[in-house]
């Protein structure tokens, strides 16, 4: 029993770290779905674009050290992607209030366009996002060699999750976003500029996708189609967590991370499939996901 626990513990901890990264990927996706009821299939491309913007900024000869360039990339790349997100939102306006399929198709098209634009701008080959030496290398943790960068990435994920939560819960703008998600017509009736609110939410969602892209780039690598690897788990996690639920997405991310990590260790061929099996099992038992609100139909 002790031996099993000793064997299992590193995988559970690794699963939590992996799950935090999954949650980070899903945050921006969750925000846009929750507030605007738009399944943004371009989320993965915005994720990739964030990584590419960061690679570009890191490659600039600014006469400053790698740490300063990384910090700059961490701020400027999400801002750049937020602008792209805003542009995308403007193109989406004609789809509001119509069949959700229009929004789905538009964001799918946008994903293809963004991926091809990345190919045109940076080529189809692999890029590397350099990280400061303080974050690279390995460390010994509980007798295991562990990448320092993964610990940093988990820490970054926790910080970003908390910051977003504080923003949504403790600021007036956060309250407006939540109100917009709950009842957009009432928000408009209260004199809040819903058009501007949607623009802001899309920009924030895009910036969060970019941040996830920057954090995960040194682990996953930077390729034009890397976004596809991000959008599928993001979608799965928000469904699992309950659409629109912040902590649902975080918990679902961690749950998926643990399931993938433990399956990877003991039945490795099932590791990727395990997240889909988890989704099937959970949705069968609880169709609205972990923290999804009851619909009228369920009453």
């Amino acid at each position: 029993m002790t031996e099993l626990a000793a064997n299992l513990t590193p995988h559970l901890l690794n699963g939590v770290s992996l799950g935090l990264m999954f949650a980070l990927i899903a945050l921006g996706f969750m925000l846009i779905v929750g507030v605007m009821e738009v399944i943004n299939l371009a989320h993965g491309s915005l994720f990739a674009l964030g990584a590419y913007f960061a690679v570009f900024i890191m490659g600039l000869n600014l006469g400053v050290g790698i740490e300063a360039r990384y910090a700059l990339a961490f701020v400027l790349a999400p801002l750049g992607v937020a602008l792209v997100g805003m542009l995308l939102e403007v193109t989406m306006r004609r789809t509001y209030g119509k069949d959700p399929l229009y929004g789905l198709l538009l964001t799918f098209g946008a994903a293809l366009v963004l991926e091809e634009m990345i190919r045109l701008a940076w080529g189809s080959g692999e890029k590397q996002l350099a990280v400061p030496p303080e974050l690279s290398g390995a460390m010994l943790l509980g007798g295991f060699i562990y990448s320092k960068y993964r610990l940093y990435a988990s820490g970054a994920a926790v910080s970003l999750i908390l910051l977003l939560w504080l923003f949504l819960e403790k600021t007036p703008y956060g309250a407006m976003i939540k109100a917009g998600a709950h009842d957009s017509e009432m928000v408009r009736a209260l004199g809040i500029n819903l058009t501007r609110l949607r623009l802001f939410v899309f920009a924030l969602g895009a910036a969060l996708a970019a941040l996830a892209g920057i954090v995960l780039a040194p682990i996953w690598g930077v390729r034009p189609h890397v976004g596809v690897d991000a959008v599928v788990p993001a979608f799965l996690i928000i469904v699992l967590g309950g659409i629109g639920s912040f902590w649902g997405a975080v918990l679902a991310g961690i749950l998926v991370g643990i399931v993938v990590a433990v399956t990877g260790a003991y039945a490795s061929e099932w590791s990727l499939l395990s997240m889909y099996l988890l989704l099937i099992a959970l949705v069968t038992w609880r169709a609205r996901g972990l923290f999804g609100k009851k619909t009228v139909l369920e009453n």
Partner: protein
Amino acid sequence: MKRRKLLQMLAAGSAFYGPWKVHHAWAQAGQKKPLVIGLTMDASGQFGASGTSERMGALQAIREFNEKGGVLGRPIEALHIDTETTPATGSRVAERMVTRNEVAFLIGGLNSGVANAIGQVAQKYGIVYFNSNSSSPTESGRDCKRVKFVWDGNGTNFAQAIVKNAIKVNGGNWALLTNDYIWGHNTSKATRELVVKNGGRVVDELMVPQGTRDFSTFLLKLQQMKPQVVAAAVGGDDFRAMRQQVLQTKLDRQFAWVNNQQDWEDVYGLGAEAAFGVFGTTWYYRFDLPGVKEFVEKYKKTYPGMQVKNPGNTYYNGYMATRELLRCVEEAGSTNNIAIIKKLEGRKMSARDRMQHHDAWIDPATHQVQQTIYMATYNDKPAEPDDIFKILSQVPPAEIVDPDAPKACKMASYQETPSYEQ
């Protein structure tokens, strides 16, 4: 014949001939019908990068033939459709190319599942298919086809070249890291057999699903297993992600790594250190052999400004396969499939012509090109930034022949293969 009938026939003839003449540029120019080659190569998915390179190689060979006036007096056209590293797409693309585009031959294949799917379509119609870069032992074994020719070294060839020496140098406790698809399975199977045959032991095998981006679980598990050697049969984007993560954790120094085959595109741009471990390849752009310099220069001239500044093994295979096919068409004086197949079976190719160290040949029993395999590792003294491989040794093809392939390969006879000609 009555005048009215004659006019009707003329009208019908013009109605057919007019559009036909307009739509066929070659007919307008009064040229012979072009020979269309279908390039079934991945441009996206796990092997998108390598697929792009092999396509560039094939196009270069076609360009060279066209500069000399084409083949059999016919200009050569290339038709490429992305096979997306997906067997179902490969099958659909091949079917479409044969039935709608009337291609004369099919060339391309990185993923063995895709190559096998294309091979099945090719055999159904009798169209000659060159699997240029996929290297599952099954391609020239269980899944061999009369119409299919396998151009790359396979997992067994590479394992034969590496395993014995690796056990001697690093020890007998091995862990296998296997991409969970046909190439991974069969390459690891060959490695396992050779490890056991040479007195070693496989402590465990971890299956890596295709599309894996996070290898932390596998790397933790390897640390728990404590093997002396890790033999990885992981390819494409999965391999690139794995390499980066192994380097981040410095696990490249904890175990001896054997990475069956290393495609150039899978390591290019990651830095010399990313090419850790011992691995196999079939060609390197810095070989000091006749023709290599000119070949590399031509690549740079034809494809200036490419991110991959020097050609690698996948480009080389794409080029060599296409060139040899077109030579055979010329020699046969026909595009008839059986005539071409007969030209290819047992064909000998000199080392000088192929820019390798030993002569190569096409095994008539398996249709696999038997060629020199090179053992390499990362280059600690690179002469230039792209000089990331240090070639450790070269193994003549006769020493690494896959002994099981001829037993497993059951080809259709010539009579059972449909006749095909375009």
